């Protein structure tokens, strides 16, 4: 045995430096974009959770006598054709969209990630076939898929979640695939092969943790689109069903009134949708920036 056996003095690992996730959190908390978006989103979440306790009227209570009154001191945003208080409806109107859209996004993320890992990892014929199928799938508008699904499954929140989740999954799968294609060329994947690791271990234990950042970015971006899609489906009558005070649904049932000058029955719901989508997109922008600094 040589005398080199004594461990050379090694420096204490620099634990003072932030972990990669700490780094991301740090830059998120310093990003104005992210914080603004977060404030908007949190506002709507609070409204969804506790709105019914502080709104001035029951959002579902109709009062035909007071129907279609313009914005005033007792009805800030006016009333709709059934005399329901528009302000109260807008405040609690986020309840359904804020459960359906995130659930759909989570479904899309899980399905898309699994699919993307598989096609990115195996490449070859699996990738060729699945990728073409996904592309074909992506070419069909969500609305058509929704129409078919509703005919087949009937209208329910679950249908909406499944339809949006599955139609967004291919987009996430594509993002994951391209990240996996870069990762699988790294030597740690070869090292896993040289331990006879199974494909599942290599994909989910070795590669997955390293592709989380692009997945997170894509998920937040998708959430914005999912909100938009849920509102669209509701507007078309395929999504959330009455008597929910859902924004898309409210616009759908009132937009015929715009011609009559009753703009307030539609405008505030539309602004609400826009603000939530913008809020989520700002968050997505912030997350993207934090990971790509």
């Amino acid at each position, binding site marked *: 045995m040589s005398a*080199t056996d004594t461990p050379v003095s090694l420096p204490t690992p620099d634990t003072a430096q932030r972990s990669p996730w700490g780094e991301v959190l740090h830059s998120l908390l310093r990003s104005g974009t992210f914080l603004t978006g977060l404030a908007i989103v949190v506002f709507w979440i609070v409204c969804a959770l506790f709105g019914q306790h502080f709104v001035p009227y029951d959002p579902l209570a109709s009062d035909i006598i007071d129907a279609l009154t313009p914005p005033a001191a007792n009805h800030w945003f006016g009333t709709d054709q059934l005399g329901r208080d528009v302000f109260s409806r807008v405040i609690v109107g986020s309840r359904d969209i804020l459960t359906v859209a995130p659930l759909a996004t989570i479904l899309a993320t899980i399905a898309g990630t699994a699919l993307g890992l598989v096609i990115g990892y195996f490449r070859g014929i699996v990738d060729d076939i699945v990728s073409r199928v996904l592309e074909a799938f992506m070419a069909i508008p969500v609305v058509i898929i929704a129409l078919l699904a509703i005919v087949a499954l009937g209208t329910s929140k679950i249908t909406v979640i499944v339809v949006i989740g599955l139609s967004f999954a291919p987009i996430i799968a594509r993002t994951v695939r391209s990240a996996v294609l870069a990762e699988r060329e790294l030597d740690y994947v070869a090292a896993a092969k040289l*331990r006879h690791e199974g494909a599942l271990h290599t994909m989910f234990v070795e590669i997955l943790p390293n592709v989380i950042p692009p997945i997170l970015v894509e998920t937040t971006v998708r959430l914005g689109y999912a909100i938009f899609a849920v509102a669209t489906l509701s507007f078309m009558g395929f999504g959330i069903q009455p008597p929910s005070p859902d924004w898309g649904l409210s616009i759908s049932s009132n937009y015929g009134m715009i011609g009559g000058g009753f703009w307030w029955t539609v405008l505030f719901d539309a602004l609400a949708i826009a603000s939530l989508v913008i809020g989520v997109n700002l968050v997505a922008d912030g997350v993207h920036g934090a990971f790509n600094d």
Partner: protein
Amino acid sequence: MTDPRQAANALELKDLSVAYRVGRRNRAVLRNVNLTIKAGEAYGLVGESGCGKSTVALSVVRYLPRNGSITGGSIALDGKDVMKLDAEALRRARADSVSMVYQDPGKALNPSLRIGRQLTEIFELAGVTGQAAEDKALAMLNRVRISDPAGVMQRYPHQLSGGMQQRVAIAMALANDPSMLILDEPTTGLDATVEAEVLDLIGQLRRELSASILFISHNLAVVSNMCDRVGVLYAGMLVEEGSTRDVFNDPRHPYTVALLRCLPSGGQRKDQGRLDTIPGFLPGIGANIVGCAFADRCALATERCRAEPPPLYELGDGRLSRCHYHDKAQSLPRATPAEIAAAQPKQAPPVLQVEGLNKTYASHGRPLRAVKDVSVSLRPGETLGLVGESGSGKTTFARLLLGLVAPDDGGSIELEGKKLAPRLASRSEDQVKAVQIVFQNPDSALNRSHSIRHILSRALKRLGGLTGKKLDNRLEELVRSVRLTDRHLAVKPRQLSGGLKQRVAIARAFAGDPRIVVCDEPTSALDVSVQAAILNLLADLQSRQDVSYIFISHDLGVVRYLSDKIAVLYLGRIMEFGPSEAVFSGPHHPYTEALLSAVPKLDRSESARIRLDGEIPSAANPPTGCVFHTRCPRKIGAICETKEPELAEAQPGHTIRCHIPYDELARLQKPKAVEPA
């Protein structure tokens, strides 16, 4: 070689201090650096990574990153204070008088513009337009002795090899006829043969141009060949300066002494002793240094060194040393004892027997023979060194052994007498754990999401078949065998230095008691002192566990230190195979001769210089006859172009693929001074 025409110094740094702002704190990177480069002089700056070499270069042109700032001192280019220049004057200075050449020419050139466009652009900036600019660009390419300059003008950067790209980058740097040329590791990413060509070119250009050169390199031998004077940087301080000859032959700072000792030189071999290392680590940037910065790593350090910062002592003849005991520097004791147990003669049956291995890829419908008819054998405890330029098939051969790529049908790989399946998936568990690899780049080889404990435990579980308490015990043993400690287990790879990461990678390869470990350039990303420690570790593990290595490296000194046998590859074919000493001392294949001659030597002892012309041909379209004939300096005639020579036995165990008979090779290569083993 100093040109005394101009009196003004080309570059003068006075008390230059630079800091990088990290985590709201200014951390000193350069500390009061004084440095003068006279007109026409070539000045070399050496030191390990993190010493501040590149920061010096960036400061000179005020290209520091956004968080960097010059906290004190002054920089004068041609007598003009760079710090006082306004934006326009600074732009003019950068355009007219300073040029930089960076390490990676691929990144320095614009990938979407033709070479001609990029070159003429520089002249257009200087007011020359149209045909005149194009003519000048062509003249520049001629000047850097690129073959077919007119053709190169029409090409895009990716269509050129690394060496040609670097020539173009040098041409661009010289286009403005700079008075100061800064070369930051200009040959680091290049093959030894290409490096030699580029260095020759720089040497020739020096004689033609008046430019002063600041040459930054971690490679001491390169600097010793290129520069008149050299400065050694340590922790942002100049610790030694003097003429190149003096500093390298008679170093007066313990750090320089230690750096020089880390290099496997003069044909040193593993069975003749371990390499010396430098204990400890470079102080982190911004560290508060009391006393001498090197004291913690210096065996000569006394109380005085730890308390009192040494000034730059003037030793006469323009020599400077920042050491209180500069007169005793060379008595620095070794940090690693040289002696090792005598190696037993190896008579065991071969652990690895490769016969007629081929690998053909399809490249644009044409077969590309990456490995052709390779046969080697290796005994337990031996190292097979694989050498050759990039593209010679070294890595493909290693991947064939590992089963990561399947070879063509025919040919066989036998491990301890048993045939290895071509594909990894069809090999048995025992065979899989018996052949492992240490990759070149630990950042890619270690999963960045996993802790060191996870990485090593998983390897022990899968390769060692261990669980529970047994696994924990073995883990502790394994960690100690690569000289890490428990502390390192909890962290992620990114929290470790390059050398420590490579130790983890080595530990992983050894988790299942392998018979053969492929080492694919394991030290090429490391500093010399860390390289020495890793090479020692590999040699120790080998002598203890009787493991065999397949060692791939472009650094022939490193290969020679560790190898018992050498295979020289060219276009996937073995050109020479034999015991390490026989291959290195010659007579050898003309290609081996050229490879050896390309290695820059510290003592400038080169006698016969052989340079290979042109590029390594494409394996998809190899030359007829002997594949090396297009570049062979000893080509004898038509037979070389028509008939591929056999790998013929020159001496027992030593085979050479050449039409020139062995005795004739011996006669031709005789004038070359044989290095003492």
